[in-house]
């Protein structure tokens, strides 16, 4: 009998730290990323340009934002999607070899600039398995989620982005936070309280640094610490919104508050007793059930909206008084054919594995969601 050879862990996996910020937009991820960046973590360039919604910058690599946006478009998932079945839609992407290789090449290039690479994009949470696979031979991924009270997150989203109904915002918060927590279990991770980031950021950073096994705090210089201190804007304080002022349904409020309480039981490293984990599992199940109820209840509205859209699409451009009137069934068939053609085209583009250099391609991405007109 021979002993199984013990393969040494590649040095790069020990030294290279891939920090992935996974969490809802407007939850303080830009502030946290900016602080890690100030402490020496490398944010891949070029970045998304700052705008009025985030004048201090997003710390989001433009290539990643465009890469994620393309994937989300392909599978028809929104950045803040409330549908529990959206996770199944993005799941397949992790198994797409050409997409993974494309990402792997990009990740490898970033580690030429340093041993702590920071990637932040609110879309990232949809592709956690893909990132883990892409980093397999390059770096150990570590995840950070900023915990900001959902009421403040929703209020901020309503202020800066095109308004969806606050019910949907609350549902999207539940969906993304609950499933992100589930997806990052077993990995090095940090849950960073937003209030602590504003009130005692050095302590918050130190805890997150330890939870994720980083070396940023240990190596920080006085200038870097000075920079971190200057990132916190004292006006970044809590909003005065209430659930009732936002008009969120009580069932969503109750579930959201329960989940928020569970998240607050997590320590920074997200390693807690089984009771909290069981609670989070139950909360996910409760959310899936609640969403299913809402979806089935609203089926008539969904059907009517689909038909109205389909009708307007086809009649606006094609119908003339001399044509045979278009029945809903014919319209549905035509739309399905069009969707098939569009989908095939998109898949062909994705499968080609063509490089999406951030300097070419679609117009610059400037924010995470459509913004409100100023």
């Amino acid at each position, binding site marked *: 009998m021979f002993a199984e050879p013990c393969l040494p862990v590649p040095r790069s996996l020990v030294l290279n730290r891939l920090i992935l910020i996974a969490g809802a937009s407007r939850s303080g991820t830009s502030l946290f990323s900016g602080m890690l960046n100030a402490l020496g973590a490398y944010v891949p360039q070029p970045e998304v340009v700052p705008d009025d919604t985030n004048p201090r910058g997003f710390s989001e690599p433009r290539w990643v934002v465009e890469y994620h946006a393309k994937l989300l478009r392909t599978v028809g998932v929104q950045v803040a999607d409330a549908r529990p079945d959206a996770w199944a839609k993005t799941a397949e992407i992790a198994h797409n070899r050409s997409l993974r290789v494309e990402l792997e090449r990009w990740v490898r290039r970033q580690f030429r600039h340093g041993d702590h690479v920071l990637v932040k994009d609110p879309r990232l949470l949809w592709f956690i398995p893909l990132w883990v696979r892409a980093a397999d031979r390059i770096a150990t991924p570590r995840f950070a989620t900023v915990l900001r009270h959902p009421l403040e997150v929703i209020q901020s989203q309503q202020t800066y982005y095109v308004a969806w109904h606050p019910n949907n915002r609350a549902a999207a918060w539940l969906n993304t936070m609950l499933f992100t927590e589930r997806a990052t279990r077993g990995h090095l991770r940090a849950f960073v309280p937003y209030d602590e980031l504003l*009130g*005692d*950021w*050095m*302590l918050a*950073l*130190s805890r997150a640094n330890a939870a994720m096994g980083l070396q940023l*705090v*240990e*190596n*920080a*210089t*006085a200038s870097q*610490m*000075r920079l971190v*201190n*200057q990132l916190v*804007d*004292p006006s970044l304080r809590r909003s005065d919104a209430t659930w009732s002022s936002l008009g969120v349904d009580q069932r969503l409020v109750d579930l959201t508050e329960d989940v928020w309480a569970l998240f607050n039981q997590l320590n920074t490293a997200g390693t807690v007793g089984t009771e909290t984990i069981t609670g989070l599992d139950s909360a996910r199940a409760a959310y899936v059930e609640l969403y299913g109820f809402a979806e089935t209840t609203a089926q008539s509205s969904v059907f009517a909206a689909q038909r109205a859209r389909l009708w307007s699409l086809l009649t606006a451009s094609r119908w003339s008084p001399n044509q045979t009137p278009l029945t809903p069934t014919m319209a549905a068939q035509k739309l399905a054919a069009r969707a098939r053609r569009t989908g095939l085209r998109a898949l062909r583009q994705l499968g080609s594995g063509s490089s999406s250099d951030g300097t070419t391609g679609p117009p610059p991405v400037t924010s995470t969601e459509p913004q409100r007109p100023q």
Partner: protein
Amino acid sequence: MLRRDIRNREGLEAFDVQWRDPEPGAGMLTAVLRVKNEAESLPWVIPGLLRAVESIVLIDNESDDGTPDVARQVTKEQRAEDRLEVLQYPFAVSRCGPEHLETPPDSVSSLTYFYNWSFSRVRTRYCLKWDGDMVLTVDGERAFDELRWQLEGVDGIIQIPRYPVYVESADVAYVDGGVTNREPWGWPNKASFFHGKGFEWEIPLWPEGLPFVRLPEWTCFELKWLDADEFQHWSNVGFENHTRTGRKAREWSVFHGLRDGRLPPEVQRVVSAGPDHVIDLLRQPDAARYARDVG
């Protein structure tokens, strides 16, 4: 970023931080000394400072060795009582290291808060952070005297080299030339200058792009009494773990080496053969050779 008044989380209004701008006629420099049990060092610290700056604000943090009385007495001997303000800060302040990290910066127990409160007492154009064991040399006094007019037209950061001096007795001391510390010790008393929290201690904050004014190599030295506990203000002494605590690790090693009767590398023994105290001897300009020879 601008400093703002701070209410402490304990709700102690008398100790809220309320910043005030420089007062006309108050002068250029105030040395702010935050001290705890520095009675032994102050007789060497205060006279030189009084020759170098217009005002001294001494904040006593629960000393039990008569530090405030010594400060007043020494100042009286220099006939400068009107230039010394002694204040009490009656709170246990977290020690450097993990204890500091765990303390919220808006607590009266935080070093960050303590510093902001202390510096909010300054009324001159510039403030100097000064430790209760830092002795100005003759060269240092001269440099500060000149700075009082040289700084009139500029907002800059004053950087001062500082060497540790380990005092064994009135006749014998050791100068460590193996470590030079060039920290920022002075800055304008303006809205964009205040203290923030660092990982082990407080850090001064200022706007980017300011010029640095560097003082001569032998401007001052820091007294370390070999018969005292020089590390009591640290909550842990695992200095090797961080790049920032390299200087402390060196001090720890030299301090314990000397206590054990060993002369560590790059440390020079200085003996006063005459009637002068060895500290007075080290204040003289030619003592700079102890630092330069080995540094």
